[in-house]
């Protein structure tokens, strides 16, 4: 397992993440199966069973326990990971907040799936959007390669001394997790050198320096600890580009807060999260052949939200369509709301409109995207009216 050169293999997004975990080789993985996340932990469990990694694998009885075991392991001074989806993430919810507020650098691949009910196993972003204020850094990836890359990169980001925050690497359920794509794997030793060793802060196993994790924290200090979390999120803005640059050196692949696609002369821009960006890119190419000046702003990092990049890339455009794969009942959809508020100070605000699509795994087609673009170009859309793509009236 010490290949010296990058290896291109055809694997699913779940397998790509399992390989990233194999190369990271965390001390502890505690997980519970849930569709469509299951294959990540299934493939990883095989690496453990085959003796490929020395990771301590804990098959727990629920996701609440999975995150609790990971919190305990990281507090002890170990590098620990888990993975989940939808209702599993919802069951973790309490401990998801505790991992962030206790400042434990967990990396958790999440395979996006619609939250119940009614029960559904297919992709939308309602599960991770419910955790957007939990204090975790959130990435949304377009394909299996990005899932692999950002899982590795996130270890460094989470553990950086000025960050010390957990990271969710979100990939679209089935579309990415079960779709087979060519993925370039870095050599094992390159990944091991890149992630390095975890440098624990206040490890519980350092019995020479006893510490207390999770004590009662009332009106006298809780507020100060929240302010520290806010600062750590701000620090991500400075630290992430540095780590992304290091990752570029070992992989040749560039990551940032956002990815602009054909934006230089674009008058009409779409903004999206996840695998739909691939469909939008294809549609942008097709529409450009017909002379339409369209482009895409893909959001890689949703938390902390890349407000500066939103302003830089969207100010002065004629129209912007924001696609959301989750709804916020009684309020604006999450990505739309964040983009809109980021543009409040812009001198030249574009005509902004909101489309919700793909709930419960409803397919989004190039025709859907072209329809949204054409409506936006024609100026017939009303800002703050929520539109729906692919919904039957």
């Amino acid at each position, binding site marked *: 397992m010490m290949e010296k050169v990058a290896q291109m293999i055809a694997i699913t997004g779940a397998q790509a993440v399992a390989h990233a975990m194999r190369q990271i080789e965390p001390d502890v993985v505690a997980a519970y199966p849930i569709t469509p996340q299951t294959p990540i932990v299934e493939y990883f469990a095989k690496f453990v069973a085959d003796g490929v990694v020395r990771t301590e694998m804990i098959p727990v009885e629920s996701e609440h326990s999975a995150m609790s075991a990971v919190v305990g392991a990281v507090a002890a001074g170990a590098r620990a990971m888990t993975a989940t989806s939808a209702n599993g993430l919802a069951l973790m919810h309490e401990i998801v907040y505790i991992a962030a507020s206790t400042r434990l650098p967990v990396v958790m691949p999440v395979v996006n799936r619609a939250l119940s009910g009614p029960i559904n196993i297919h992709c939308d972003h309602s599960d991770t959007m419910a955790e957007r204020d939990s204090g975790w850094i959130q990435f949304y990836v377009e394909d299996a390669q990005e899932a692999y890359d950002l899982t590795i990169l996130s270890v460094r980001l989470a553990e950086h001394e000025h960050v010390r925050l957990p990271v969710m690497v979100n990939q679209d359920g089935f579309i990415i997790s079960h779709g087979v794509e060519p993925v370039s794997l870095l050599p094992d030793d390159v990944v091991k050198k890149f992630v390095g060793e975890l440098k624990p802060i206040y490890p519980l196993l350092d019995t020479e320096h006893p510490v207390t994790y999770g004590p009662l924290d009332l009106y006298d200090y809780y507020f100060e600890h929240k302010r*520290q979390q806010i600062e750590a999120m701000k620090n991500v803005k400075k630290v992430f580009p540095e780590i992304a640059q290091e990752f570029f050196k070992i992989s040749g692949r560039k990551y940032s807060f956002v990815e602009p696609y054909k934006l230089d002369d674009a008058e009409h821009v779409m903004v999206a999260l996840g695998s739909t960006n691939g469909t939008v890119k294809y549609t942008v190419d097709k529409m450009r052949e017909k002379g339409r000046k369209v482009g895409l702003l893909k959001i890689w990092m949703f938390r902390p939200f890349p407000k500066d990049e939103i302003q830089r890339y969207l100010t002065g455009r004629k129209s912007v369509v924001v696609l959301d794969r989750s709804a916020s009942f009684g309020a604006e959809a999450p990505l739309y709301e964040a983009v809109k508020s980021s543009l409040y100070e812009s001198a030249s605000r574009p005509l902004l409109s909101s489309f919700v699509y793909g709930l419960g795994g409803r397919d989004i087609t190039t025709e859907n995207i072209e329809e949204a673009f054409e409506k936006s170009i024609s100026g017939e859309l009303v800002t703050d009216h929520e539109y729906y793509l692919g919904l039957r009236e």
Partner: protein
Amino acid sequence: MAEQKGWKDIPIGGTIVEAGSAREYKTGDWRVLRPVYDRSKCIDCMMCWFYCPDLAIIQEDAVMKGIDYYYCKGCGICASVCPKSAIEMKPETDFAEEG
């Protein structure tokens, strides 16, 4: 309670980085009722010492010496278990001027 520090000067994550810090935590100011001890009635049976949940009964060589008001929360268990009614619970407001 020690002087309160700002967010830049405390360990992250709410972690307490030294052992035994609970000793510094004054729980006496939670008290509404104060146990008042009458030495003349006390037989040093140590029932109050056994039962006190906050280790707030002061004794030396099995001789009752008084109550540690820095920690005593005023729960009244000592007064309840005392076989000689040597401990009486009085409202803290009676002692307001003493501080």
